[in-house]
């Protein structure tokens, strides 16, 4: 254990990036992430790296592309509207197989939205916000300490798979101060990058490119990417499971709302109620297996996990994480949803009360605050179809490893 220091999320993620060996940062001012470029401007040169205040978010992501192509650990950060501007660059990073870390301290949208905390960019991050068939590893940390740890992890994964990685935070996480132990983050050295454009000395030229004009060649590249994504799905899922062994109602949330759900779960346990939680730390790859574990089999069957009666998803959006939960649960249990938007944080009391009612009187659920949905469980015959569909949609197993299943 190192010393606990109090750090703002935005500053902590910047420090973690420098610890991880990031030596190039380009960014453009936008609230509520300005402390990241400010911290980089202060620290990066002393660390032997470079900071550039770019003319736009578009330029920043393309500077990162150039630096990453030259072999450096590189990063940019922004908040929702600025991240939209970076999408083309992220697609190019994915297509050219360049490692880079992008941090999004989400604010409210759509449009100019607001500057308070929100989670409306989940789809954009996890489903490919830019053009083309690509995936981006996406972390959804919920404490400042975790922000530090996933940032170090992000640089490692980016390099190992030569793929962009996003840290999907939110305004509260970026602005809040919490105790941090920086020594908890385990930095791995960057691998050799023989593909980088460092000058064609004693070797053939290296080319960083994503243009393949012949469809056969382009598809081959796409297959290669898909195989890589299956590997990532197999190896890089990060999740926290809380009281899943005997949970009857399982809360699901990431980022700041996960803190509220976690607090509610502890309070319910104090009252002797069997609340649990699945907290995805990677949003893509999504921890589907954690859900499978607790919904496989019927309530009548023996074994762990079959006590789960329902799921309770809490988000600062209209239900985006919810869709991945639906795919994973595939109609086998009802899913309840509580969401706030526009920069409003869910009320801890409401989260607690809803979850308590789910455990004690599910019929009464349906809060008066926020956006509340119920996704009912399907009839058994429909479940079979839904499960097959979800497995197909995830491509789990089918193409993994061999990469040849669909060819």
């Amino acid at each position, binding site marked *: 254990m190192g010393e606990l220091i109090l750090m703002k999320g935005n500053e902590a993620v910047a420090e973690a990036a420098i610890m991880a060996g990031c030596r190039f940062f380009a960014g453009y001012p936008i609230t509520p992430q300005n402390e990241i470029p400010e911290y980089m401007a202060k620290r990066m040169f002393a660390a032997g*790296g*470079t900071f550039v205040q770019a003319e736009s978010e578009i*330029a920043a992501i393309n500077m990162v592309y*150039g630096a990453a192509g030259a072999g450096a650990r590189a990063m940019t950060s922004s908040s929702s509207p600025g991240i939209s501007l970076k999408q083309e660059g992220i697609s190019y990073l994915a297509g050219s197989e360049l490692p880079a870390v992008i941090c999004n301290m989400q604010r409210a949208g759509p449009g100019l939205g607001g500057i308070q905390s929100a989670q409306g960019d989940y789809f954009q991050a996890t489903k490919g916000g830019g053009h083309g068939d690509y995936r981006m590893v996406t972390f959804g940390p919920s404490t400042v300490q975790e922000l530090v740890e996933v940032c170090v992890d992000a640089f490692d994964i980016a390099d190992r798979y030569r793929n962009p990685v996003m840290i999907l935070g939110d305004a509260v996480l970026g602005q809040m101060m919490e105790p941090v132990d920086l020594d908890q983050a385990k930095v791995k050295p960057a691998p050799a990058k023989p593909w980088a454009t460092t*000058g064609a000395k004693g070797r053939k030229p290296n*080319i*960083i*490119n994503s243009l393949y004009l012949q469809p056969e060649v382009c598809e081959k590249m796409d297959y290669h990417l898909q195989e890589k994504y299956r590997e990532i799905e197999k190896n890089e899922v990060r999740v926290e499971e809380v009281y899943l062994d005997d949970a009857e109602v399982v809360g699901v949330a990431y980022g700041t709302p996960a803190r509220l759900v976690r607090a509610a779960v502890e309070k319910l346990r104090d009252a002797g109620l069997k609340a649990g939680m699945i907290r995805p730390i990677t949003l893509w790859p999504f921890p589907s297996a954690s859900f499978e574990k607790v919904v496989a089999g019927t309530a009548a069957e023996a074994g762990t996990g079959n006590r789960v009666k329902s799921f309770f998803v809490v988000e600062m959006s209209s239900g985006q994480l919810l869709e991945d939960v639906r795919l994973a649960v595939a109609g086998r249990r009802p899913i309840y949803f509580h969401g706030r938007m526009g920069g409003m944080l869910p009320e801890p009391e409401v989260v607690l009360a809803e979850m308590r009612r789910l455990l004690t009187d599910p019929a009464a659920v349906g809060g008066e605050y926020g956006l509340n949905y119920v996704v009912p469980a399907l009839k058994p015959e429909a479940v079979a179809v839904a499960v097959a569909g979800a497995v197909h949609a995830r491509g789990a197993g089918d193409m993994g490893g061999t990469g040849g299943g669909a060819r």
Partner: protein
Amino acid sequence: MSTRIFGRPESLATINFHYCPGCTHGIIHRLVAEAIDEFGVREKTVGIAPVGCAVLAYNYFNLDMQEASHGRAPAVATGIKRVMPDSVVFAYQGDGDLASIGTAEIVHAAGRGEKITVIFVNNAIYGMTGGQMAPTTLIGQETTTTPGGRDPAKSGFPIPISEMLGKLPGAAYISRVSVSSPTHVARAKAAIKKAFQTQIEGRGFSMVEVLSTCPTNWGMTPRQAIEWLEKNMIPAFPLGELRNWEKEQGQEKAQGSQVEVKH
């Protein structure tokens, strides 16, 4: 015994270009490659290919290359140069890439005084997409999106990028040349070399605008295109240096100034 007096520069790959007959991209590629060879910096040079007709430039140079998204080559070059300050980095861009979608990137790379070299190929039209109006299309010039000729009332005026960039303190060397005759080619070569020298000596941002032809989309033979360039483009885009750190230093010395302009 024989001495080789002419051959393919080492910085050019040994494959055929795809450019149309009469297109001057090939000449400009060659001039860039010769300059890199002559400075002996091939093994520490990284080039950036644009989106446009020269999109495949990464195949034509025998150098480490990166393909940039449309207009962003100066930003990509910035990232490369900043993490490898001893490298030689050049961006090769067309008029649509540089003067339309990428104006922010080129202006700010020059404004920051990035120690990179930009080769700006201006042929007053969008070639790869089939002959639409470029930001440098001349008044009255016919394109597929200016039927009947460019009318300023509808489509505005051509943008003199080199004159604009020449005003920026971060720009150390800005020059406009043509490749429409052997004399012009020789001058273009000298300008491109000066631009690379500017970068290698760490003087600041350098750019050479090269007036170029597009016989295919201009609807002309190669010879007509060369004539059209000389008759119409050179008057609209006057040739010459718009910024030269060396001359400015000379002037300052002549005036007895103690202050050296730092780029």
